[in-house]
C-alpha cells in the first residue's frame, strides 16, 4: 500500500521544490519579481486559468476531458459585452453570460453521457462550435466601454492590499472544490469513476449524472472566468482566451493528475498553477516574447506526462533487476 501512495506524495513534494526554485530564480533574475505590485500582476494574469483548472481537475480525475473551456470563456465574454452594449444592466449581462456557460457545459455533458460519445471528440467539436458562435455573434468587433465598477473586478485589488479580487474568488473556489473532491462522498465517487467506470456503476454510483454535473460545472466556471477576463482586459472580443485550453490542461497534468483518470489532488494542481504563473511572469519580466512562453508551456505539458512515465519505467527496470539479483542469491 505504501508503494502505491508514495509516488503521489513525492510528486507534490517535487512541485513544492520546483515552486521554491522558480521563486528563487525569479528573485535573482529580476529585482521587480518579489514586489507586491508584481505579485498582483502575476496572480491577476493567471486567475482565469486557475479557476478553470478546478473543474478540469475533477473532470480529468473522473476519466473525461473538456477542451471547450477556452471557447466557452470567449462565448460568455461576447454575450456579456453584447448585452451591456445594448443597454442592459450589468447584473443581467453577467447572469446571462453565466447561463450561457451552463447551457454550453450541459450540451457537452449530454452528448457525453446520453450518447456515450468520447468527451475528447465532443469537446473538440464544441471547441470549434462555441468559438465559431462567438465570432458569429460579434464578428470582428469588440465591446470595450465597460463601467469602472465592473472593470475594477479585473483591475482592482482588495482595499489596502495587493491582492486582486480574482484571487479572492479563486481562493474561495479552491477551498470549496478541495472539500468536495477530498472530503465529500461526491469526491470519492469521482475517483471511483475514474479508476473503473463499470465497477463504479455496479456499486450504485450514477455515473452519467455525476459526469453531466461536472460538465455543467465546467461550463459555468469557464463563463465566470470569461466575466473576469472581460473585466481585466476591459474588452469583450470573440477571440478572447484563444488557446487557453492548453494552459488549463497543462496545469492540471503538471499538478500530478493522471490523464487516464482516477488519480490526482487539488493541492498538486494549485502548486502547478503558481509554478506556471511564475514561469510566465519571469519570462515576461525578462522581455521574452509570448511565443517562447507558449513553447515552454507546450513542452511542460508533454514533460509532465513523459517524465513520470520514464521514471516509472526506470523504477520497473530497477525493481526487476533487484528481483533477479535476489532470486539468484537464493539459488
Amino acid at each position: 500500500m505504501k508503494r502505491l501512495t508514495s509516488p503521489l506524495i513525492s510528486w507534490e513534494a517535487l512541485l513544492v521544490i520546483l515552486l521554491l526554485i522558480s521563486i528563487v530564480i525569479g528573485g535573482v533574475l529580476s529585482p521587480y519579481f518579489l514586489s507586491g505590485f508584481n505579485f498582483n500582476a502575476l496572480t491577476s494574469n493567471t486567475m482565469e486559468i486557475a479557476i478553470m483548472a478546478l473543474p478540469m481537475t475533477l473532470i480529468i480525475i473522473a476519466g473525461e476531458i473538456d477542451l471547450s473551456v477556452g471557447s466557452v470563456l470567449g462565448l460568455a465574454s461576447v454575450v456579456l459585452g453584447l448585452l451591456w452594449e445594448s443597454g442592459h444592466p450589468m447584473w443581467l449581462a453577467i447572469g446571462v453570460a453565466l447561463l450561457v456557460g451552463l447551457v454550453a457545459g450541459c450540451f457537452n455533458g449530454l452528448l457525453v453521457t446520453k450518447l456515450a460519445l468520447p468527451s475528447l471528440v465532443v469537446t473538440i467539436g464544441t471547441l470549434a462550435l462555441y468559438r465559431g458562435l462567438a465570432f458569429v455573434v460579434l464578428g470582428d468587433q469588440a465591446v470595450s466601454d465597460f463601467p469602472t465598477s465592473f472593470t475594477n473586478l479585473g483591475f482592482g485589488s482588495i482595499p489596502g492590499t495587493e491582492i486582486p479580487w480574482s484571487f479572492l474568488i479563486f481562493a474561495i473556489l479552491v477551498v470549496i472544490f478541495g472539500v468536495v473532491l477530498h472530503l465529500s462522498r461526491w469526491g470519492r465517487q469521482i475517483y471511483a469513476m475514474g479508476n473503473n467506470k463499470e465497477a463504479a456503476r455496479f456499486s450504485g454510483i450514477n455515473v452519467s449524472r455525476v459526469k453531466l454535473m461536472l460538465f455543467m460545472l465546467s461550463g459555468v466556471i469557464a463563463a465566470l472566468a470569461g466575466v473576469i477576463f472581460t473585466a481585466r482586459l476591459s474588452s469583450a472580443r470573440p477571440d478572447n482566451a484563444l488557446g487557453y485550453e492548453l494552459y488549463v490542461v497543462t496545469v492540471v497534468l503538471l499538478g500530478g493528475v493522471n490523464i487516464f483518470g482516477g488519480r490526482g489532488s487539488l493541492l498538486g494542481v494549485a502548486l502547478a498553477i503558481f509554478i506556471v504563473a511564475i514561469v510566465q511572469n519571469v519570462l515576461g519580466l525578462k522581455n521574452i516574447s509570448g511565443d517562447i512562453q507558449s513553447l515552454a508551456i507546450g513542452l511542460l505539458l508533454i514533460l509532465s506526462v513523459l517524465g513520470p512515465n520514464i521514471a516509472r519505467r526506470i523504477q520497473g527496470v530497477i525493481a526487476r533487476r533487484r528481483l533477479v539479483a535476489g532470486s539468484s542469491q537464493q539459488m
Partner: protein
Amino acid sequence: MATTSKGMERARQRDQVSQARLFRLVNRVRELGLLVVLLLIILFVGIQAPRFLSIDNFEQILLSIAILVIVAVGETLVVLTRNVDLSVGSMVGVIAFVTAYFFKQLPDINLLLGILLGCTLGLVLGMVNGLIVSFGRVPAIVATLGTLYAYRALVFIFAANTTTQVNASDVPAGYLALATTQIFGIPSLILIAAAIAIIVGYFLHASQTGRQLYAVGSNPEAANIIGLRRDWLVFAAFAASGLLCGLAGVLWGARFATVDATDATGLELAVIAAVVVGGVNIFGGSGTILGAVLGAIVLGTLQNALNILNVSQFWLQALYGAAILGAVVLDAFITRWVQRTILSRRKKA
C-alpha cells in the same frame, strides 16, 4: 458438454463474421449517404445561385481543398490507429514559412531541393510526435496538443530572427508555379492531392502494413498478441502524417505566396472535421481514404456555398464544429443500430 460449447463457439464466430459484414455494408452506405448529402447541398445552393453550378466553380472548390485533402490523408492514418494528431496545422505552418524563406534566400536553387527540405522537416516533426506517443507512452491528445503550441512557437521564433513575412515577389516564379501549373487543363495542386489520396488509399487497402494499421486501431491488445509491432506502426502513422504535412506546407507556400508565422493556424479543426465527417471512426480501426476525401469535399463545398450565398465567413468555424458533432452523433446511432440488429438476429437464431 463439449459439443454445446463448441456449438456456441461456432455461433459466436458466425456472429462476428456477420457483424463484420454488416459494418462493411454500413460503411458503404455511409459513404453513399455522404454523396447524397453532397448532392443535396449542390442542388439547394444551385437553385439559389446558378453560378454555383459552373465547372469553374467546381474547380475552385477542388482547388480550395487540395491541401486539406493531403493533410487529411495523413490524419486518417493516425486516426485509424486510435490516435489523433492535433499538431498538423502547426506543422504545415512551420514548413510553409521555412520553405518560402528558403526560396527567398536562395532563389536560384533547384526546386526539388526545397521540396525535399520541406518534406524532410515534416517527417522529422512527425517522428517527434510519434516518438513521444508510441515510445514515451504519452496519450496522443496530450502529446500533439503540446507540439501544436511548441511547433507554432518555433515558427514565431524563426520569424522573429529572420523576417516577419515572405511575399510573393520574394520567391522564384518556379516555386509558385508548383501550385499554378495546369496539366491537361487541371491545376497541378488538384492532381497532386488526387495522386496522394489514390496511392495512400491503395496502400491502406492492399498492403500488409495498411491492414496492420486497421488491426492496431480496432484492437490494440489483440494486435500486440498476434505479434504486430504496435509501437512501430503508430510511430509510422505519425511520421507519415508529418511527411504529408511537409508536402502540404511546401504547396501552401506556393499557393498563397505571401506567408507569415500565423499561416495554417486552426487547420487541425478543418482536417479533423473532414476525417470524422468522412466516416473514419475516431476510435480507430475503420474508415477509408475515400471517405476522408469525400468529407473534405463536403466541407469545401459548404465553405464555397457560404461565399456564394453571401453568408459571413464567421459561420465557417461554427460549421466545422457542428459537422464534427453531427458526424459523431450519427455514427453513434449507426453503431447502436448495428448492435441492436445483431442482437435481435442472435435471439432469433
